[in-house]
């Protein structure tokens, strides 16, 4: 069983809105539209981009995270990217991830604690990544930028290289590799986002420990933990999503 706590909120976050995809709209176009709706202020806070893919790696990751859902159906999400908006084009903003299928291969990950510079253009294909969400994190960009740099140098704080080596056998089906999430080992990109944002002052997923974080937990935090985030003058996550692609539906 995965140690994840359900939110006591009775209704979902009203500031996380469904934004259906226009016909033939690419993911970048969808994101630009979602960000335009937030105005100038919303465009200056760090962003989390959640992605739900259809390729085999994404499929296995979505199934693995079913244990974080009360109905045990696969998660709509397989990956998360942390973006530091810089005022210009979204694709030119610094973005960070720990992909399990990096475009240029892993190279030698230790010097950056496995963190990779992300290129959002890689996720443009709405056929390969039909599920998409953008979340505004109520923080200034500067402390997040600083925390990302520190995270890359501080493997002792959270060893995400180790997480990569735990997840690769699972997604590749090597030997008898079991679901690392069940042993409390989160998905590396989500764990990176969790620890970085936590260090910068925002508790991203109240339902789960940082080291066990995953895109599904981030989704649940955005959708259901708004009352917790919003208490004592705090600001909840806001954003938009489209999550039409489903791998299976629970009966009833």
């Amino acid at each position, binding site marked *: 069983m995965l*140690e994840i*706590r*359900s939110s*006591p909120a009775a209704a979902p976050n009203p500031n996380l809105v469904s934004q259906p995809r226009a016909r033939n709209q690419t993911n970048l176009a969808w994101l630009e539209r979602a960000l335009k709706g937030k105005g100038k202020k919303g465009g200056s806070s760090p962003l989390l981009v959640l992605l739900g893919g259809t390729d085999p790696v994404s499929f296995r990751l979505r199934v693995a995270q079913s244990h974080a859902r009360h109905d045990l159906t696969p998660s709509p999400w397989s990956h998360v990217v942390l973006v530091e908006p810089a005022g210009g084009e979204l694709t030119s903003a610094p973005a960070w991830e720990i992909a399990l299928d990096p475009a240029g291969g892993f190279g030698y990950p230790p010097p950056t604690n496995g963190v990779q510079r992300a290129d959002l253009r890689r996720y443009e294909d709405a056929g390969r990544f039909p599920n998409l969400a953008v979340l505004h994190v109520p923080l200034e960009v500067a402390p997040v930028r600083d*925390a990302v740099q*520190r*995270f890359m*140098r*501080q493997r*002792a*704080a*959270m060893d995400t290289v180790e997480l990569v080596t735990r997840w690769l056998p699972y997604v590749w089906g090597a030997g008898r590799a079991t679901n690392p999430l069940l042993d*409390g080992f989160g998905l590396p990109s989500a764990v990176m986002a969790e*620890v*970085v*944002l*936590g*260090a910068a*002052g*925002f*508790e*991203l997923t*109240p339902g789960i*420990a*940082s*080291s*066990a974080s995953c895109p599904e937990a981030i989704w649940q935090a955005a959708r259901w933990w708004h009352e917790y985030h919003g208490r004592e003058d*705090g600001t909840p996550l806001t954003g938009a999503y489209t999550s039409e692609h489903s791998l299976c539906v629970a009966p009833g």
Partner: protein
Amino acid sequence: MSANVVLHACAAGAGRLRVWLGARERTTAPALSWSLDGRPAQPRALRPIQSARSGPFLGGDTPRIFAGLYEFSVADAPRAFRVGVSVEGAPPVTASLRAVPRTVPAGLDSSFQLMLASCFYSDEDRGGVAGVSMDSVLRGCTPDLLLLLGDQVYLDLPPLQNLPDARPALARKFEQDYARNWFDAGAYAKVVHAAPYACVPDDHDYWNNFPMPSVQSQNTWNVAGRAAWADVARMLYGHFQHVDPTPVGTPVQFDVEPLSFFLLDSRAWRDPDFQFTMTPQARDALSDWVSRCIRERKLGVFATGQSLAMPRASDLNRRFGDSTMNNYADFHFLSGQLDRLMREAGDVLLLTGDMHWGRIVRLSPKDAIDSGMQMIEVISSPTSLVTTPVRDPLAKLKADKRDPWPRHSDATLLGGVVELEGARSPFFGYTLYRHRGNHVCLLSFRRRGNSLEVTPRYFPLLPGLQPTSAPSFVLRHR
């Protein structure tokens, strides 16, 4: 260490470097000359150096231990201070000591490290394994605070020894136990020296099941014998373990923002008629502390020498075996206060030793399961397992030869409904982790937004064995 003059750092509030000084083989209080970072300095004497045995416990002017408690005002800086002391008639001694930090640091590359230890029986560690293992532990981490959670000495052991009845003779024997553990590097002194320390007592800091008569300790079979033993043990506890200028039995409190620590001595004045484990002053202090935590938005850390979540001992067992906290009438008050703390301030961390195994348990109130409020109990025990005649040899015979801990048992699983009488509702208990064998536990507190994420690691006290991590948990404000 293993010298005749020893300095240990003690826990105190931020900006205060509290130092325990011990000098042995003395007949008079020596003159002292202090330095801080190489410069002459004059600390405040919280308890000026004095004979650990005095008055009716002295019985002649024999060489003995002199101990004192001193405090320097220092900057709140995450560094060690070089404290030196010249004790008249002995070579100068210098130690690198740290003060407890003001806050749990922000940022992902730093954390507040709390070390827990308890139950050290030196006769089972004659090779100094605990000390050697601590050297290795300390190469990899620097604890900010050390809580010694009971049975720092076993005054009533070995079990079959015939102890003297007279106070001076008893005091000499008990003083030797303390001397070994506080001075000798081959014993517990390296553990005590690992970080600024504070203690809570358990029964063996007096005798088994103190203050009830103990079957295996003849001296406790009558009122006069118990009174003499209790007086001596309490006096020595005060000199070595109660590192606070208040009288023994007073709860020790300090903050590491946003944490607030409350160390309850539930043993020193425990009532033989099962009415109370706390003095009236301690009750008031507990209530005030809970109110302060609520008012100042602190996360409470509550340390005791016994687990609060133990099944109530039977009438026979509480008198002749091991009484539990819930055998005492004031348990309702204690639980009620901790329940108030959890509901109005935030998640509560309970720390204890005693059990001879390690365990982490989550307690979620049944009436508010959706809220996520919780108490987390962390048990760390032992550092050197006490001898249990008959059972130990049998356990060794039964055990696998490769088992490094043939005498140790597994932690009891706690699950289902757990009653803490006095709390508004029963709790659901869930065991998150169990640990077997001699160890120290290290809790790393890291800021996570407004909350604290705690990662426990258990370090086996046996060279060559690697530490194990338990699942992290998060402490949240209400």
